[in-house]
């Protein structure tokens, strides 16, 4: 019954965002703010994500059982929601990383080293 949403611009990279979030959580449980900053800083600020779009992605991942969440206390002593990678999430991350590597390799093979 639910009508299919028209894909928005950001959706193209949705799968990639999921992968990035999972990758960030390998380091240990974190709340949304930490994850956003980790992605930005690890990519040397090349990937600047709209911070708000992180949350629908996190909730989606939680529904799929790839991450679990828990309320905890943040570094500045406030109540915050911490996300943690599940076993299923770890497997999905491996699979997604593999897919990504194969794809980028294929693309770079086509593009070649450089051309004049």
């Amino acid at each position, binding site marked *: *019954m*639910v*009508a*299919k949403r028209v894909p928005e611009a950001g959706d193209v990279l949705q799968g990639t965002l999921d992968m990035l979030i999972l990758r960030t959580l390998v380091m240990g449980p974190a*709340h*949304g*703010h930490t994850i*956003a900053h980790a992605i930005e800083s690890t990519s040397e600020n090349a990937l600047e994500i*709209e*911070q*708000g*779009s992180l*949350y*629908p992605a996190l*909730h*989606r991942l939680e*529904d799929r*059982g790839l991450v679990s969440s828990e309320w905890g206390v*943040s570094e*500045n002593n*406030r*109540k*915050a*929601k911490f996300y943690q990678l599940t076993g299923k999430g770890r497997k999905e991350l491996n699979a997604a990383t593999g897919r990504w590597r194969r794809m980028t390799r294929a693309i770079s093979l086509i593009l070649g080293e450089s051309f004049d």
Partner: protein
Amino acid sequence: MWSDRLSRMRFLFGGRSRAEVDEELEFHIDRQIDANVAAGMTEVEARRQAAIEFGGRERVREQCREQRPSWSLELLLRDLRFALRGLLRNPGLASAAVLTLAVAICANSTIFSLLSQALLRALPVDDPSRLVVLNFAGSHPGHRHSEGGSSEGHTYEFSYPMYRDLREKNLVLSGLVASAPVTAGVTWNNRSEAVSVEMVSGDYFQTLGVRPAVGRLFAASDETAPGANPVAVLNFDYWRTHLAEAPVVGKNLLINGTPFAIAGVAAPGFQSVVWGRMPQVYVPITMQRTVEPEWDYLNDRKSYWITIAGRLRPEVTLAQAAASLNTLFLSVRAAEFTALADQSAKTRQEFIDHAHLNVEAGARGFSPLRDDVQAPLIIIMGMVLMVVAIAIVNVASLLLVRAANRVREFSVRYALGATSGQIVRQLLCEGLLLGVLGAGLGLALAPATLSLLIGWMAQDSPNPQAFTAMLDWRVFAFTAVAVIVGSLVFSLAPAVQFWNPRLAEALKQQAGTAMGGSLRFRKTCVALQIGFSLLLIVGAGMFVCTIRNLRSVNPGFETEHLLSFELAPAMAGYPAAGVAPVEQHVLERLGALPGIRSVGATNDEDLSGNNRAGDVDVSGYKPKRDEEFDVELPWVSTGYLETLGIPLIAGRTFNASDTATSQKVSVVNESFAKHYFASPQAALGRHVGRSGNANRAALDTVIVGVVRDVKHTTVHDPANPTCYMLYLQMGKPIGLAYYVRTWQAPQSAENSIRAAVANIDSKLIVSDVKTMTQAIDDSITSQRTMALLAAIFGGIAALLAGIGLYGILAYSTAQRTREIGIRMALGAHRATVVGLILRETLILTGWAVAVTLPVALFAARAVRSELFGVSFVHPSVYVIGIVTIGLVAALAGFVPARRAASVDPARALRTE
């Protein structure tokens, strides 16, 4: 899968609530503000930057909610809430649609429940699919006792010796059962009454797989020799209602005065292997002579009186069984032929060469009633389907009108960002809601309607339980689903308009010129409704005429002030010699009662669907070669012809000088005299006789009078040649139907009659007391039912068509407000405007009528066998139908037309 379900559960118990999402997002932003302040921004700047970096907060919240597992459920609830609000905004239209659907569902499931009981239900026995029913083609010289249901080439009655041969010599059946119905006098606790008894073979219950509720049922040892097995099994319902579930096993029950030991009670729900029989007591078939003393059938190969059904052996197919049984049947027939008196080639051909045993699948059992009810029920089903069709067209047009009225609402919502998917979803929800409400209301009404209908049909019926007020749930579910799917589909019809790619332009023009396609659709709807209604109204007219004709038929004698009842002394245990004297006594006693003009009796009730026919030898008449001519042969008492008031045209009627020992006399009717002699006068003094056989002595009577023809079997059958004989002179103890002509209302005589009979002997059972007009009504029950239902359906159809027409016309007239405004501004009168709209309506009606008339003629022709005294082209029926539907259309058009004409032109022009 599991985690998915778990998260759904979590939602139910709170889980990720809206507040939680808010808190999480708030934390993020606060954290970012802190970070920005730490990076050296001012408080205000930090807040601004944080908001920018976060993006649209409301959208994120929305997206988070959409990730929730319960999201689709929430959407559905929201849509339903919307739909309900939408329906309530226009309660008149919504309730019209719901009522329409409810009427359709109720009518459909009621009628189909009846139909499935009559035509489709299997017997409540073990593995009914292995049952077979036997009937045969070929002549059956001798005596045949039929409940009906037989037809040319399909005689369902067999002789008992033939049954024994088939049962004992066949190799394909694991059991073959015989049964025959009879009415007998049953006495329990000194209370006597006439009850239905079924004579059954010893293996009857065992073969059918019926178990005892109490005690034991019959076994092969209960079918040994004629008169040797006085045991009885009770029907469960009879045991419960008449014997109060008393411990009965081993106790005695008197049947026709003979004690029968009760062996047990059959399992609840079981009635008979023959559909429609409602026996209350079962006795072994070998007791035939006791329960039915008038006849001696058991050893007679020329008495056809039992119906038989068998159970196929495992591994045997119907075709194999049919072939094998037919061979056996033919060999028995060949042996039977040698014992016939008539050995002519023609008899041989009819008896052997034309003979064939038919084996039919018998899961539903043989039913003498089924043929009678089949045609009427199928006609009624056709009417119901038409009502359902009207209902669906009606709902479709109502929904369409509704949607068209909401173009503006939808365009606003579309402009505000609703997707077409959301609009479609909402339309579907409204359709669903209508369908479910209609189905619910239909469900609430159906059981009451069904029992009302059955109660009405069973009024005074000889076996009131033939139909049970049980709603067939499969039928109901089917109808409900059909209607719900129908309303869903039609709720989508308007959505087609919104998928128009040039929607924006269409909306700009809005209510202006109606779109061509939907206009044609609406016109089709109107025409269909008018057409179906006309069909139903014409049908109703035909059946109402039929019933009126049947009621007013003159049977040839006065039917008012005539009361009948039955009394068989044998049921009270009278021995053969005592029957005639007590009957004579009853006749004398009743004739002397105050308020009674005269009394007579017959063994062949009038206008009850029964007849007793046979062939006779007439002196001075040379039968044509191979002539077979059966005449009606009622045995009557002195005073019978006078009581009924059958006019005498020659000679004399029976009188006191005709006694058991005097010269045997007969009175014939006009048709009889015409067939055998030139004139009524010529008949007087001639002899009418019958040759003797196992069941009767040879007979010779002198014709002493000729009377006018009167209707005998039913009011719609023409009179047969009839030869009345005096029962006293027949020397056979029989039960009689008594006719009492009264001065006052006939019902008032019942008590004095009962008292007078009880005064003679309290054991005598007076049963089936009814007036002649009641008897006539009973004999035309199926026509009455049909007339009533047709009238109801015709009325419903006209009403539904009226509602549908009104809805459509109200809409299309409203669409033309501006046009009407212009016309009136240019000087048109109100009457002109009303006339304009009415004319268009009536032209459309005219087209619909013109198209429907040939269909109506064709349909009426198809049902003409159910009509009486009215031709299928009867003009007045059609004229009344057309006028009715024209009036309905005019009325439905007039109201909106008047409303349109009363609009102020200035305002009408400003509507855009």
